[in-house]
């Protein structure tokens, strides 16, 4: 089958659009991963205190891992963008 040539300018615009969408996601995830706990102090005691600690740990880990994953994707898009130059 014949391969249709792709306009490099259109590709550049597509990658830049993807970066514009993904970069704020990385920034926000990194900020949320290191932000203060969403749980207000309420003298958590016993099982509630353990559950609060678990939640906080899960959230920070999940946010950090998501930030890393999206950041990896941003790097790949940037790499493709650099290849066009």
């Amino acid at each position, binding site marked *: 089958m014949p391969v249709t040539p*792709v306009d490099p300018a*259109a*590709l550049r615009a*597509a*990658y830049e*659009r*993807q970066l514009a*969408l*993904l970069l*704020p*996601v990385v920034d*926000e*995830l990194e900020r*949320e991963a290191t932000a203060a706990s*969403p*749980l*207000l*102090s*309420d*003298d958590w005691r016993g099982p*509630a205190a353990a*559950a609060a600690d678990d*939640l906080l740990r*899960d*959230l920070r880990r*999940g*946010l950090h*891992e*998501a930030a890393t*994953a*999206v950041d*990896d*994707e941003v790097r*790949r*898009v940037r790499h*493709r963008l650099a290849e066009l130059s």
Partner: protein
Amino acid sequence: MSRPSEYAGIAADVGGPLLVTPAGTTVVSTDAVLASADRLRTLERSMHEKVRRVLAADAVALGWPIRDDLVPRLERVRARCEQARDAFGRAAEEYTRAEAEILALQQQAAGFLAALLGPALLGALARIILFQPGVLLAAALSGWAAIPDGPDGRLGTVRDFMLAHPELITSPEFARFVSLVVTSIDDVALGLVGVPAWLAAIPGVDLSVGGDRGVAFGAVSTIALGSLFGMFRETPVTAARESTAPVSAAPTGSRERLDRIPEGSPVRIEKYEADGMPPRYVVYLGPTETFSPFSDHEPRDLSSNVHGVAGLDPGAYRVVERAMADAGIRPGDEVVVAGFSQGGLMADLVIASGDWNVVGKQTFGAPSGNIPMPEGLFGMAVRNTDDFIPALAGPQLDHHVLQVEREAFAGDTPPPTALPAPAHQRGGYADTADAIDGAESAALREQNRLLDRFTADYLELPGGQATQYLYRGERVPG
């Protein structure tokens, strides 16, 4: 904000957490739990928005195919937030259900005992009065003589003892006890007419008015009994305007509203005007002035309290009505009412009357839980859980307005001894009002904001101005 002098030496923050019951629900949460749930909800929305962005990036024509695991990763974080928020909700529901079950059991037990023992005790008392009055007199005199005679007499000794031991009447347990007593008076009456105690203890078998668990009946019985001795007598009243003055600024926050509730004059009305707008009013109502059960010149007395809880037409309420009319408040004008103690009771009577267009309220320590409120009001009812005065109207009847509760003296610090019932004093409510102003939950902040905006909005408009009227009421002894 400064603290009243009687609270000198008491650390500012000795109160417990704010307990919040949003309007339209009976589920009690702490402000901190509600605020935590708010933050988790915000995080959920944030994850949802990120999912939308990642999907949009993946859908860009000619774009790099986005790896498949990003959306599930974000969804897992969102789901964890939702799961925790649900757990908070379930915990609050279970706490509320457990509390309600305990209260129901206590009410049934109290009703049973009242119906079983009340008639017997009253009968014994009546027999002694009729057939052996000397024995009763001797017992009373012996008891009176047993009280040490201090510098202010034996009554002074009793007063000093109560002041020195505020812990006896300053606890959530005592407030609960008071509530159980006032909701059991009707069970005594049922027992007197022969209803078996087991039947009187069944929920719904009572002499309630509008589901108030017999609170109004108890107050009417108190009035009837007191009237035999000339107590709790209602009289005509007058209301006279004392002063008129401009208001420089609208109140901001619950503490400032509490501080505007008058102590000397019973009624303070603020009129807010702006060009082209109908006037708005805030009616501030002060607390009880005298606890004498014998009506004199002061309408803010015990008679008004008992008649108010009974749902009758207390003198203090008629003073408020006259003052509102004199201030020019028309039936359609928007009004917010704010009151402390008896003032809160009168505020709720103004709302319940349906004669005025009350759109919001803020009451502190009001014995008015048995008064049904209409739906759609903004604002809040504030009670200290270790204050027994609100318990005189029984448990909270409806939840059409946000309820805020807090134990005023929750720590190991003993309550102050300068004034009686410290959890009912302004100082106790000033601390709670400060805690409300520092609250983090959207449920509480929004109601505080609505109360603030009701007055501040007009002052920010062209021609915005406010005027204050102070009124004094008088009983006209008949």
